[in-house]
């Protein structure tokens, strides 16, 4: 082969690769630009925003944030989202770690039956239970408040995926773990708390991320259960500024930013861990 056609081939390859990068970059911009724009627009002066919504800001103005935070319970919604998501994560871990330990590491006849029973939840959409669930929980809502009552469906809803991920991880730990622990004189509680849980932390991390974001972003149950402004979570707070007569865009975009920035920060910090956590249910690992 002559050197000239070699050069042509290399040039062609480089061109192809360059073209691919340009396309990949275009797609990346189409993802990033709207998100960056949302945050940018929310700190612009509202009048300037309406004159040229897609332009760059010339000044920074936090007045809209002050307004939604103070007058529309958005600060309250942020706090509600944080507490409800955190409590769900903690309670769900307590239930699923104990159950997974008994299913994956202890020896009894019906462990696989119980596991199969819990995993049926992976197939059942929440929609098919929401009507009776709400009707039976009305007295509970009246007794303990909607913010506490909603934890029941949230925690129960996270159990199938949590038990699935944690129990399959615990099963992958070698049998010699127990043997060594018992030779060292561990009892069952120490085995659970000091050995199996610390060894299962990667699975715990995945489940924590998955459940936290799931509840943080959940809309339908919240819509049915949380009817009062003061008890609502962020996805509901986002909708306060749209109505029959159109949408108050500056307020909406500021609230979207308040809801989205924590997710994005978490993502920037955790990256691979978060991707793994969110896909752990679909791709074992």
């Amino acid at each position, binding site marked *: 082969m002559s050197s000239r056609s070699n050069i042509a081939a290399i040039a062609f390859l480089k061109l192809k*690769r360059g073209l*691919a990068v340009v396309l*990949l970059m275009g*797609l*990346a911009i189409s*993802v*990033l630009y*709207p*998100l960056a724009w*949302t945050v940018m627009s929310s700190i612009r002066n509202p009048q300037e925003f309406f004159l040229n919504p*897609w332009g760059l800001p010339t000044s920074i103005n936090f007045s809209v944030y002050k307004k939604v935070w103070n007058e529309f319970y958005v600060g309250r919604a942020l706090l509600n989202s944080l507490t409800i998501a955190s409590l769900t994560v903690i309670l769900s871990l307590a*239930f*699923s770690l*104990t*159950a997974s330990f*008994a299913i994956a590491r*202890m020896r*009894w006849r019906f462990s696989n039956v119980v596991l199969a029973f819990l995993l049926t939840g992976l*197939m*059942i*959409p929440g*929609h*098919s*239970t*929401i*009507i*009776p*669930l709400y009707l*039976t929980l009305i007295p509970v809502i009246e007794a303990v408040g909607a913010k506490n009552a909603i934890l*029941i*469906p949230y*925690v*129960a809803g996270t*159990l*199938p995926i949590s*038990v699935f991920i944690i129990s399959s991880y615990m099963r992958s730990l070698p049998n010699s773990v*127990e043997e060594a622990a*018992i030779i060292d004189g561990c*009892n*069952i509680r120490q085995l659970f708390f000091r050995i199996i849980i610390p060894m299962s932390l990667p699975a715990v991390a995945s489940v924590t991320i998955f459940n936290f974001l799931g509840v943080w*972003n959940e*809309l*339908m149950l919240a*819509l049915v259960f949380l009817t009062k402004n003061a008890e609502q979570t*962020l*996805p509901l707070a*986002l*909708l306060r500024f*749209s109505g029959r007569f159109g*949408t108050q*865009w500056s307020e909406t975009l500021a609230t979207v930013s308040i*809801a*989205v920035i924590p997710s*994005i920060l*978490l*993502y920037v910090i955790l*990256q691979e861990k978060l991707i793994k956590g969110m*896909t752990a249910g*679909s*791709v074992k690992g």
Partner: protein
Amino acid sequence: MQKMLSNKWVILAFVAPAVLLYAMVVPYPLLKSIQYSFYRWNIIGTAQFVGFQNYVRIFTSDYVFTTALKNTALFTIGSIVLQIPLAFILAVSLTKVTRLNKFFKSVYFLPCTISGAAVSLLWQFIYHPNMGIINAVLKSLGLGGWARTWLAEPDFALWAVVISISWQWFGYHMVIFLTSLSTISPEIFEAAEVDGATGWKKVWYITYPLMKPFIKISMILITTSSIKAFDNVYVLTGEGPANSSTVLALHMYNRAFLQLQYGYGAALAVILLILCVVLSGVLNKVFGTKNAEY
């Protein structure tokens, strides 16, 4: 050790809380839903057994249900067509582009971490007739005649949702495919190159068959989540204009929680459940259990 690990009381104490909570919140209300679906129950306290009447009404005289069923099917197909080929091509390309692949992967996955409500509001602005960027770009390209009030077009509203949902989730499926690609050993490709396979031929004859089980996972995920789709439709179009973009979950929500027809809503919920289970089963069968091996 045997004794300690098969202590009945410890097992009971560890398993019972999760099983009881789950049983009370998922299987029990599910059975209740099935029961309610045979009742006419419009206002609390006046439930009346009506046999299959709710189902008969749904299939014979509920035109919104017919639209919802058709839309759910289009929603599923549209989401699959927009996401899976794109995710596949991106995953394959990212294994070749080495320098920026981490950056691209992170960016494409980013929207998955955001709530459907937030994404839908963002897209509501993108589609906005006066201020939205789509019409602005069309006008700047001299195609102002193509500008529309997108979300008010009965023929487009559903697709508006499908586009926004695909924008949000294509990165998720790309990550599934990237994970599966990382399990294919490079030797297989080397062997194929020796046999004369190059470029996209390699992709078609080797990568695709090996990735089939993962494509199946993505198909099932997209199908079930399309049947369950609620957030994005509720926020972006609110089933409008004139029910044209309604979907099953939204129809159920409206009937049960706005019109307070609990029995009728429960019947819709049962249909939704059956669709989810049956379609995941069908997809599992269609894609077979035979996975390619080399």
